[in-house]
């Protein structure tokens, strides 16, 4: 088993942390995992992305050209990863930040209004966790519970009071994606 996930968005959208939480969850369930960010000046205010590879064997390349799974938190990331996604793959798109629908029909595009859901929960910063919840609907190797445990285990102590809202964000994202999946013709 090996799954590659790219998470992309603007710097400040929690792209790198979201990937780390996923990596922790994978590690805590005994899998091999790599997390690699785009780094350097491109992080400053521009788009950021990280690649997470989860496997049950020694991982080779930490980077992937055509990922089966991706999260696009903004329009530039949607543009980029819609074209790069492997056929049959799933792209989670933050609907709040894009103004178009999907163009490819050989991939699954799950639109999630991450900003609005996060604001409903009461913290717009949770938008990355909403997207993460949605991603988990297409990543059976890691459960929502695993990510919750990872958050509990690795969130800095000063942020521990935010755990319930993070759980809520994961749940809402997952549920929203489930509904979208239900619309997909069998």
């Amino acid at each position: 088993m090996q799954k590659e996930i790219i998470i992309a968005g603007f710097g400040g959208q929690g792209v790198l942390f979201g990937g780390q939480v996923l990596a922790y969850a994978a590690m805590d369930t005994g899998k091999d995992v790599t997390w690699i960010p785009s780094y350097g000046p491109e992080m400053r205010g521009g788009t950021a992305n990280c690649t997470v590879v989860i496997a049950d064997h020694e991982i080779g390349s930490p980077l992937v050209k055509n990922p089966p799974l991706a999260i696009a938190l903004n329009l530039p990331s949607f543009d980029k990863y819609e074209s790069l996604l492997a056929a049959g793959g799933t792209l989670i798109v933050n609907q709040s930040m894009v103004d178009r629908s999907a163009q490819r029909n050989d991939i699954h595009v799950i639109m999630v209004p991450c900003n609005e859901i996060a604001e409903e929960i009461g913290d717009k910063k949770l938008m990355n966790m909403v997207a993460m919840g949605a991603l988990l609907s297409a990543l059976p190797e890691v459960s929502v519970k695993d990510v919750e445990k990872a958050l509990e285990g690795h969130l800095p102590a000063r942020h521990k009071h935010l755990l319930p809202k993070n759980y809520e964000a994961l749940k809402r994202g997952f549920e929203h994606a489930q509904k979208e999946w239900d619309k997909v013709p069998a």
Partner: protein
Amino acid sequence: MPKELWKGNEAIAEAAVRAGLEAYFGYPITPQTEVLEYLSRRMPELGRAFVQAESELGAVNMVYGAACTGVRVMSSSSSPGVSLMMEGLSYIAGTEVPAVLVNVMRGGPGLGNIAPAQSDYNQAVHGGGHGDYPRIVLAPASVQEAIDLTVLSFDLAEKYRMITMLILDGAIGQMMEPAEMPEMKPVHRQDFDWATNATMGKRERRLLTSIYLNPLDEEQTNLRLLNRWKEVQANEVRYKEYFIDDAEIVIVGFGTAGRVALSAVRTAREQGIKVGLLRPITVSPFPTERLSQLTGQARAFLVTEMNMGQMLDDVQLTVRGRVPVEFYGRPGGVVPFPDEILNEIKRINSAPTAGHTDARDAWLTRMTAQV
């Protein structure tokens, strides 16, 4: 110890601390800065020496000074900064004191970029500083290996009174992987019989220098270094093999290029191609003997690097034309994707070259055609 998710650069820093690092001197440069940043907090909290130097020149000479006292000392930098350190490296080699230097390599030459590259293989393995001197060069391909080799590097440096360099590309410095840290080792100052730590009235004075004005003395020094290097070659070669037992095509790649090749090898195996991977962990000393053995088994070698073919020369020197050697590289800070290497494997598998064409020339022709 349980596994934790460690970023490569920070893992190296913590591993060095646990190996008994007493002094760190460095200068900020991407993509290694996390080593400096981490140690700026960690070393003072343990009462150990940390200085952000005025330049890499300053840093390496602080390392030189501390190394002369016999403590465990290191610096880290990235390609342009390591170029500046080459002066100190040559002096450290000539003075025969142990020191550890980490190069988190980036694309070059010149200012280049900050993306992952293996462009300093030749500088690390074959030279860099002036004069005749050997050095140990370790090339980790994962965060765990970076930790293990950091610890090892101090032991090797002390055992052979030699510079030990870790070369890793920015990808390994920046990536996070689950890894296990060694136990914290208490600082143990060894009473080396060469260390200039002041006589304290108990012994004859000592001098540490790299100057041998009489050429015959310098020649003796060069030969002493070479004889010590022979010991290193005999005892310290390390490499890892994957799917090698029945491999007809053998890929040789180190660091990230090696692990990207592993992905390609797995896919190729699924498609029935008998391909394996030899991943040198010590690129100096180079696993010459093992590679030479494999010439009796492989019908072709493929060298993969994130440069224009630097280790390629060492492979060709070892293979000596007995088997065709091919090359696939991505210089400039580009990390190859597995499918690129897979395509090379398929190409070699379906149409083995006669070996008449120079591997680098052939690669350059193919690369130029693509662009």
